[in-house]
């Protein structure tokens, strides 16, 4: 792990651009609004029907009866569609100055040059930039925004859209399906290995609005991909809502790694849904760093449908003052010889609350499967909260399932040991925390590991020592 201690500034995430848009739908949610979004987006009829049907499902579903309190969310105060003043561009030069400037400061164009083979950048409801390296196009890799995909690859989209995550999964999935806009579509053809990651970055600038991007990735048989998702927003006084949806199809013998660094501002309700269907002998790895949001309810899910499929989840949540991060992982073992490994960590400070909530289900037909879960929670003071709520549902005898969890504070002995080597108390604590988070930073490409460590240092600043 790179112990980079350069000062970084929260300001880069907090740049507020003027709420200057081409089109912003009026606040609220009803049939007229959905029809208007559909019209603005030039939906084909089948997509419009999905939206209208989803609205009905949304109205019929209750808010969750568990987890964080969502009563402050008032959909009549949220604008679900905000179109920025630009078209989709394939060159940064064409992106309007102010928007480009934001992404510059977030380091996206730089990363594109050095360590990515494709980039998508979404600003409010629409993708403003998309590009992919020439050689990948030659190999048949598709990486584009969702709207283009709906237009140009309707069969593929129709076959997979809201099929991995059903519209009635929960209330916010239905909301997403009704108002979705933006996001990325990736198709990696059979046998193609994409060695350098693709990244989509989502930026929400407009106050009292929501972002509902849809990410659909199909990694065909024997292919492989690393996809990185980043998100941030400046802080406003009223709540913003993020209800994205990620659908991942990892076909037989394929491999997908999906990494997320989430750093939404602390007025964001992050109610995101991510699922992957994993084929025979395929692998699906999730890497997740959750730092931002006021409330987060995020439980990526791997459905191991193929024999011999594998999944790993490596994640960390870091909750500070006013944050309630209810995160975790779900896995369904649905075939023989499947395996899952979960390594979840959380850090709570300044009255923040972290909850690890999870489900492991080993179905009747998943003989000879293995699952091992490890959860560790670190409390940095005595006003914070850390809960672990894991469910295990084992329905066959031919299984090895184990779950371990630990909760506690940074050991005083370890602090003394490091101080005896010349580290100040604050440095010692920061080093222990970075070490604690290292399974996640080690699983990220270097630049992102550095960014994550910077976020950790930023979060720790002024709170310990």
């Amino acid at each position: 792990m790179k112990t980079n201690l350069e000062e970084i500034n929260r300001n880069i995430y907090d740049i507020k651009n003027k709420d200057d848009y081409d089109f912003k739908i009026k606040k609220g949610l009803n049939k007229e609004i959905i029809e208007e979004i559909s019209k603005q987006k030039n939906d084909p009829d089948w997509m419009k029907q999905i939206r209208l049907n989803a609205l009905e499902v949304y109205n019929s579903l209750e808010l969750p009866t568990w987890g964080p309190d969502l009563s402050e969310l008032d959909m009549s105060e949220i604008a679900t569609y905000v179109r920025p003043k630009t078209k989709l561009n394939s060159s940064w030069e064409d992106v309007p100055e102010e928007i480009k400037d934001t992404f510059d400061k977030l380091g996206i164009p730089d990363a594109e040059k050095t360590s990515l083979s494709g980039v998508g950048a979404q600003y409010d409801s629409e993708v403003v930039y998309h590009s992919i390296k020439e050689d990948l196009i030659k190999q048949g890799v598709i990486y584009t925004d969702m709207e283009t995909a709906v237009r140009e690859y309707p069969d593929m989209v129709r076959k997979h859209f809201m099929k991995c995550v059903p519209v009635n999964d929960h209330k916010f999935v239905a909301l997403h399906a009704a108002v979705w806009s933006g996001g990325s579509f990736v198709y990696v053809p059979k046998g193609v290995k994409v060695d350098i990651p693709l990244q989509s970055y989502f930026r929400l600038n407009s106050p009292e609005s929501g972002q509902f991007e849809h990410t659909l990735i199909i990694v065909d048989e024997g292919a492989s991909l690393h996809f990185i998702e980043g998100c941030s927003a400046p802080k406003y006084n009223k709540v913003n809502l993020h209800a994205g949806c990620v659908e991942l199809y990892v076909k037989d013998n394929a491999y997908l790694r999906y990494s997320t660094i989430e750093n939404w501002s602390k007025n964001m309700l992050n109610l995101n849904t991510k699922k992957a269907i994993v084929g025979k002998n395929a692998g699906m790895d999730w890497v997740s760093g959750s730092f931002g949001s006021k409330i987060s309810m995020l439980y990526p899910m791997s459905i191991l449908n193929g024999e011999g499929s594998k999944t790993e989840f490596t994640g960390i949540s870091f909750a500070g003052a006013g944050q309630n991060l209810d995160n975790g992982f779900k896995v369904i073992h649905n075939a023989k010889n499947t395996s899952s490994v979960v390594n979840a960590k959380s850090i709570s400070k300044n009255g923040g609350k972290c909850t690890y909530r999870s489900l492991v289900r080993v179905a009747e037909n998943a003989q000879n499967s293995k699952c091992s879960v490890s959860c560790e929670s670190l409390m940095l003071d005595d006003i914070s909260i850390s809960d672990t709520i894991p469910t295990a549902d084992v329905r066959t005898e031919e299984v090895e399932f184990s779950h371990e969890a630990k909760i506690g504070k940074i050991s005083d002995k370890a602090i003394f040991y490091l101080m005896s080597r010349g580290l100040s108390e604050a440095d010692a604590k920061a080093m222990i925390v970075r070490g604690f988070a290292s399974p996640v930073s080690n699983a990220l490409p270097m630049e992102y590991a550095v960014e994550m460590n910077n976020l950790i240092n930023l979060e720790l600043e002024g709170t310990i020592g």
Partner: protein
Amino acid sequence: MKNTLIEIKDLCVNAEDKEILKGINLKINKGEIHVIMGPNGSGKSTTANAILNHPAYKKVAGEILFEGENINDLKTDEIARKGIFMSFQLPEEIPGVSVTNFLKYAKNKITGEPVKIFKFKEEVKKYMDELNMNSKNMERSLNVGFSGGEKKKNEILQMLVLNPKLAILDETDSGLDVDAIRTVSKGIEMFKNENNAVLIITHNTKILSSLKVDYVHILVNGKIVKTGNGELAKEIEENGYSKYKN
């Protein structure tokens, strides 16, 4: 008094309101090797921890002067930066922090200067070879899953890399086999010069056989009851502490 490195005067220390040290006096000059011996519970480790100002040990009287400056109330890291190193009896495990990064970081903190990576790595490699350490350990998390011997060697490695003025070795030889003890002695020899000093805390005389010890102090029940030269250690080896109790 230019040559005096550390001077401890009438030091009384309590741990959890229990009197442990009851007036210790000790002076260590540059170029010297001192040994503190004593039965279990006599206050040996307390002496080491008190010098580093461990928060659980309260100094109720006396003072500790390091190069003439009172360091009683300095924070542990400030004391370390003054040039005092302690090898721990039970080194802590720090998951996720590799030995290399830790050493680099600590070296930077101690010297206050940027660390030149290549030169640094070479230096570390050299010490590791001398200490018969597996260089693969460099990328492992600090002390995590290390055997007892590996942990102790790692402490000696840190001593060599950080190059303090005063090295305190708290039971560094305990629980080690003969070969490992020899390696530890070798490390001390490599470290030692006329400008620094070593304070060895032990109840084992094996480690002393290959070192030129200047003073041996017998600590019983929180007081130094006798000071002598290397011969005193041999006497203890033969007769134990019973003569000095009560």
